[in-house]
């Protein structure tokens, strides 16, 4: 029935001959998180994260791609355990395994989660403009965020921070600056330094370079990747920009309307996309030096409060069949390390 028979999770490596797959650092299983609101007496449920499973290996960059309001930001918020009503987890689990010390995000106490934060799991957010406390010097952010994990005396700690800043080509005096005194690029490097100073095993990055100019963006991405390789952490990198993913991600997951619809090693996914949505996204990327006609996709992304039945992509899909509007396709193994949720792709039809 499927192209590759379903197998157990760890067996999806590049080759069986290689060393056995290491344990994933992050394992998300059947996760669903909905916005449940009551406004003016009307109850509505927005199914922003709907039955998502994925895992991230040590020292791996996992890219998450998707359009605006496809649920990708909700997904990483849920993974980070940073949700507040009206967003509620309605099913599934998120498990981290930090070198033997494991934590199930939604079965742990707030104290346990807080102990994990920044030492093992850190965050680089979108919009470096506003993530630093505007009325306090940068030094205080480092002290507040990292001191309790690094321990040692305050002068020793600050020496560590200064040494770490040097890796990002920041001078020690940024510590005495207020956020508004730094340029956009410098501020974004400060937040990268802040997120990596504790050498966490897992870093979540949410569109960290979207607001930056192209020239600056490339430098910042290079630094993120450089420091990730150096400290050997895993990185969950979210952006809508496939060019960024092409340059950074080891593996890539494509989200559409609250589902992950395709997943695989970045190079293979770009070379042979299976899901019609991925096929379209990659095929329509403009490039300098390429003037061949490219098409846009007709239709609009579905409203997550009232998604279409069956496959959520079927109203816009060039390959839609009868079954697509009746049944929801599940993520199936589609070759080594690859998964796809599409009835047509199962049958070997491609766009």
């Amino acid at each position, binding site marked *: 029935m499927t192209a590759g028979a379903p197998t157990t999770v760890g067996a999806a490596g590049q080759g069986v001959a290689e060393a056995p797959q290491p344990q994933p650092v992050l394992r998300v299983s059947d996760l669903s998180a909905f916005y449940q609101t009551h406004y003016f*007496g009307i109850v509505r449920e*927005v199914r922003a994260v709907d039955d998502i499973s994925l895992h991230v290996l040590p020292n791996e960059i996992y890219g998450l791609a998707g359009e605006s309001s496809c649920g990708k930001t909700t997904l990483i918020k849920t993974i980070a355990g940073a949700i507040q009503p009206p967003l509620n987890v309605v099913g599934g689990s998120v498990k981290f395994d930090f070198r033997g010390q494991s934590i199930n995000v939604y079965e742990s106490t707030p104290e346990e989660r807080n102990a994990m934060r920044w030492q093992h799991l850190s965050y680089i957010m979108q919009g470096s403009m506003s993530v630093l406390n505007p009325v306090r010097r940068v030094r205080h952010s480092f002290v507040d965020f990292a001191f309790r994990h690094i321990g040692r005396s305050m002068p020793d700690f600050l020496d560590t921070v200064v040494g770490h800043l040097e890796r990002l080509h920041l001078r020690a005096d940024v510590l005495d600056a207020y956020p508004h005194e730094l340029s956009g690029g410098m501020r974004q490097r400060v937040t990268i330094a802040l997120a990596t100073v504790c050498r966490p095993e897992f870093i979540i990055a949410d569109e960290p370079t979207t607001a930056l100019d192209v020239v600056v963006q490339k430098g910042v991405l290079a630094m993120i990747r450089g420091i990730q390789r150096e400290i050997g952490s895993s990185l969950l990198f979210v952006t809508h920009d496939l060019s960024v993913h092409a340059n950074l991600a080891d593996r890539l997951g494509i989200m559409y309307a609250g589902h992950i619809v395709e997943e695989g090693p970045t190079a293979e996914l770009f070379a042979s996309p299976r899901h019609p949505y991925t096929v379209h996204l990659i095929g329509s990327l403009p490039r300098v030096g390429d003037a061949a006609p490219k098409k846009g996709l007709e239709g609009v992304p579905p409203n997550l409060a009232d998604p279409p039945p069956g496959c959520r992509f079927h109203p816009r899909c060039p390959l839609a069949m009868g079954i697509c509007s009746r049944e929801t396709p599940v993520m199936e193994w589609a070759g080594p390390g690859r998964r796809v949720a599409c009835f047509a792709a199962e049958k070997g039809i491609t766009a």
Partner: protein
Amino acid sequence: MLSILKDLLRYNREFAAGAALLGIVVAMSAMSALAPMPPDDVYVVPPDLPPSWTYLMGTTSRGQDVFWQLSFAIRNTLLFGFIVALLSRILSLVIGLLSGYLGGFVDRVLMSINDTFIVMPLFPILVMFYFVMRDRMSWAALALVMAGLGWAYDARLIRSIAMSLRTRQFTEHSVYSGMSTRQIVAQEHLPYVMPIVFSTTMNNINWSIGLEVTLSVLGFTNINTPTIGVMIYWANQHTAMTAGVWWWVFFPVALVIMVFIGLFLLAVSMNEYIDPRSRLSRMRSAKT
């Protein structure tokens, strides 16, 4: 606008409570039309009677029925607050919008004057005004002066909205759709300013009634026009509390507190409705 009010009434507890309180107060002021005697007459009923079925809220030491007296007083007090608010709204709208749209030098000058009126201690000035006017001090003159002094804070609010609207892209889009400045202001921008005008009107009525009561109780207004403040003034003159005629003081104070809380609740619920953040989050959750 009407559907907003209906929604607020149905789903916002504060708004409903405020509307209910004000409903009672307005009904009370409407009773003045049915009053069996004119408000200025004294010694028309036996004095100092406690509340009973004949005299619902008792009678005063001056031989007036508290209930009917109160209906005139609350009518005049509400009217006073309303007129001050109306007049000062005109000032704050004109100055706020002008300052916000024109920007630059005009804005700086208008806002310096504006800030001056915000920090100016108005009470001594009002007292001084009464002091030189003495017997010529009338209800209308006081309303005019207070309107002239009470616009500044709200003008600043309106200005900040006008300024942000001016830089919004849809304003330019409207310009390039051929709309005139008047059309843009009246049709595109006014809907944004209206809710804040509404909520500041409530607060402004509170402010002016509060000052009017204060000045009247001290006798610094025309003590022959019955208002809530003037009623308390007469009660104090007759040392009603010491004499045990508590109803003469209690009912006016209770009624005016209902006005304050009712108006404030309306303003608060309206503010919550217009807060861009809460509205934004509502829109976002509707979209995602």
